[in-house]
Structure formats: structure tokens, C-alpha cells
């Protein structure tokens, strides 16, 4: 009886540790303040397991599940007190999954950009994939500096992804 109780405690400890591990891992995907020039991180990291992704992106979660999403994380940033942005990073089962998501999205008014394995730059957003990761950065204001600032932040994210 005692042994069973100890076993359950061990299982619980492992589960908790792995959840904490995942959070720590995902934390390391996001640039710190100043890593991208002009950008500071604001707010806490939010993470979602695949089964809970609907809480963040509602019906879109189905598309990500079909493509093999494992988890998602999001953090808010601010550029030089000028505008805010959100960085979402989706960890997929494989690179094909990240490609599938990008391919499933319309491409209108896209500016070409060399970033990661494939990138789409718009006036207020940047989406790129690198390996098993799909990153989406959305700015909440369209200013003259928005697009170049998004690219800076995207490169900082890519640098962290490259280290994985």
C-alpha cells in the first residue's frame, strides 16, 4: 500500500516536472527585452497544450490539431513605446506540420523575406516557419516603423529557434 502511494507520488512529481520543463523550454523560445533592438517583453508567457489550444484560438485549433500541433505559447511585446505586438510560437510534431499550416493560409500582399524555412511579411504581421516551429507575430498598429520592427523581432525569435 505504502509502495503504491510512493509510486503515485513519483508519477505526479514526474508529470509536474515535465509540465514545468515544457514551460521552461517554451520560455527559452522567446527573446528577452532588448534582444531585438527597440523591443521589450511585457506580460507573462501563456502556454497551451494541444488539447487546450481551443481556449486560445477557438475553432482554428482544429486546423492545428490536424497538422500535428503539440503546444503553443504566446508573449506580448512593445516596440519603443510606439506599438504592441503578440508573438505566438506553435510547436508542431514535425516540419511538415508547420508547412501545412502556412500553406493553408491565403497569401495576399505578401512581401518576400528570407527568414527561417519560409516567411510571409505583411504590413502588420509576420509569419514564418523553422523546423517544427511556426511563429506568428502580430502588431496592433500599422506605422511606418512596424514592418522593419517586426522583421527585427522575427530574427531574434529565429536565432533562438536555431539554437534548438
Amino acid at each position, binding site marked *: 500500500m505504502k509502495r503504491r502511494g510512493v509510486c503515485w507520488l513519483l508519477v505526479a512529481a514526474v508529470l509536474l516536472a515535465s509540465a514545468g520543463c515544457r514551460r521552461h523550454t517554451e520560455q527559452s523560445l522567446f527573446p528577452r527585452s532588448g534582444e531585438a533592438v527597440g523591443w521589450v517583453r511585457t506580460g507573462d508567457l501563456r502556454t497551451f497544450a494541444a488539447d487546450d489550444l481551443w481556449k486560445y*484560438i*477557438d475553432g482554428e485549433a482544429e486546423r492545428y490539431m490536424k497538422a500535428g500541433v503539440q503546444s503553443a505559447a504566446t508573449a506580448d511585446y512593445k516596440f519603443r513605446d510606439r506599438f*504592441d505586438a*503578440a508573438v505566438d510560437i506553435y510547436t508542431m510534431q514535425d516540419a511538415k506540420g508547420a508547412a501545412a499550416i502556412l500553406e493553408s493560409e491565403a497569401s*495576399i500582399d505578401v512581401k518576400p523575406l528570407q527568414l527561417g524555412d519560409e516567411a510571409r511579411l505583411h504590413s502588420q504581421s509576420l509569419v514564418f516557419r523553422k523546423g517544427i516551429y511556426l511563429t506568428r507575430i*502580430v502588431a*496592433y498598429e500599422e506605422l511606418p516603423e512596424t514592418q522593419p520592427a517586426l522583421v527585427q523581432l522575427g530574427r531574434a525569435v529565429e536565432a533562438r529557434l536555431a539554437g534548438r
Partner: protein
Amino acid sequence: MAREEANNRRDFLKKCLTGAAVLGAGGLEVLSGAEQTAAVPKSMVIVAHDAMLRGTGTTVDSHRISDLLDRGMQALFDRDNPPEAWKKLVRPGETVGVKVNALGGRGLSSNLQLVEAICERLQEAGIRPADIIVWDRDTDEMEHVGFHASAGGNRPQCFGTDRVGYEQELATYGSVGSRLSKILTQQCNVLINVPVLKDHDGAGVTIALKNMYGVIHNPNKYHPNGCDPYIADLNMLPEIRSRMRLTICDATTASYEGGPGYKPEFSWKNNALLLSQDPVALDYTGWQMIERKRAEKGLKTLEAEKRMPHYIATAADAQHRLGSNDPKKIAVVEV
């Protein structure tokens, strides 16, 4: 001059209701004598638009959105001033839940200035501040998009279902069995629905009817098959149906692709509100607006993309009768 203008507006609106004039997608269409006898539009959808809603900037101007709301309400309820319009909707002593949509995050959630204007007008109509509850499923989500959580005191309340929980028992109709937010079941006797005009990855569009997914504990269960018949069945629940009085759809920023999350590359500053007491007619009208934008951008129809919003027809069918999806029975009035 003001009386003459009011009389002219009343005459115009009466003609709309009796079918003498129907504003369709392409503009004003005046019916022939035979058509006037035959067609009797019953559902009015007001589209209130202000090209200068943001002035020369990008942020919605709070005075202008207040005026826009007033114009929409006066047109819908055929009244000459806002308090009179709102008094046709609510009575002192009622508790009004203003169900917003914060799911789209910043950029595509129910506009804060619009909600503030709604709360002001409700108070002018005699609703006590503490009897107004601005709510959605989660308080943190609401705060993330700019709402300030508040509970208690003599002011409008603002919080999510996470603060009070869901009913223990399931509410059921057709394909749906869900636990309902206690904000709905125990705190409001009137519901004003404030959705956002968005396309949706599964359902095709998400407007008035789908905003009720934020009322239940298990919306993730109801996304297969384009959310059909789940959306319609959910809105049949008496707890929702008996309370629903009005939809004011925030179409100030709307999305035509990539929804329901905010993707600025597929959103547009529509600078409009849609108002109706027929949520099906409103959803139908909003769907058409999204299709027009898609066509303008060179995108296929939602049907061609295999995400036709079938739930709208289901909501209007003989089993549900939640409203009308027949364009001959919908009067779209632009103000």
C-alpha cells in the same frame, strides 16, 4: 426641421418594413406594385456606418461611436432620441448582461468604447449601474483586450464566467448538452449580444449566434461539421432564448479570412455596427458583407472554400425558427 426629418425617416422605415423598399447588397431596390403586395420583410437589420469613425487616426473615436450607436438604435426602434429607443428594450429593475467577445484578442474583440456607450445608454434608460454586467467566458481574456474587471460597487460590473462558474446541471437541446454560465442563469434576465464580425475557420462566419459559445463550458465539443447544427441548437436553449433582446454586432474592424483570431492582413476597418433583434438575419447580413469583401480581395466564396455557414440555414429552419435567412424577408437599412 427636426420633426420633418423624423417623419421622413419614419415613413422610409415603414416602407422598408412593408416591403415597399428593400436595401440589398447593391443599393436601394424599389419593388413593383405586385412585389409590394407579395413581399413582407419582417426582420430589420440596421447597418450604421461612419467613414470618419476613427477621425484621421486608427483608434475608434468614443463620441463618434456613441453617435453611431444612437443612430442605429433610433432607426431600429423608430425613435427620435436614444433614451426612448433604449426604453423600448429594457425596463428599470432588470439586470442586463452585455455578452462581449474577447476571444479574437486585441484587434478583433468587442470594442471597449462601444461597450461603454451601451452601458451609458442603459443607465439613461433607467438600469442601475450595478445591474449591468459586461461579461465573457474569462476575466483575464477580457482584461487582455482592455476591459477592466470590476465587481461590486455602484458601477457596471465586468468579469468572466471563471469568477462565478457554470451550472452543475446540463442544459440540453438537440445535439447540445452544456453547462451554462451562472452569469447568464443567475445574474441576468436580459441579454444584449455584442459579437464581432468575423469569418471562422470551421463555421464559415462567427457573428451573433456563435457568440453564445462563450456561454457554455464545452464549446470545443461543437466545432465538427462546421459547427452545425450545434450553433442553432445552442441558441434554442430557453435560458438563452428567453433573455436575448438585441444584437449589436461590432463591425468596426472585421475579418474576411483567417478568423476567428486576429490577422491584420485579412481584416479591414469597416467602421460599422449591425443591429437587429433577429440574430439569424443579422448573421446572414454579416455573412454577405464578408463575402463581398472576399470577392473584392480576389478570394473564393466561403462555399468554394468548403466552409459555407450552413448553421444560418439551420437556425432559420422549421425546427428552430430562430429568425430569417431569406433575403426577401430581411430589410437591411443603412444609416
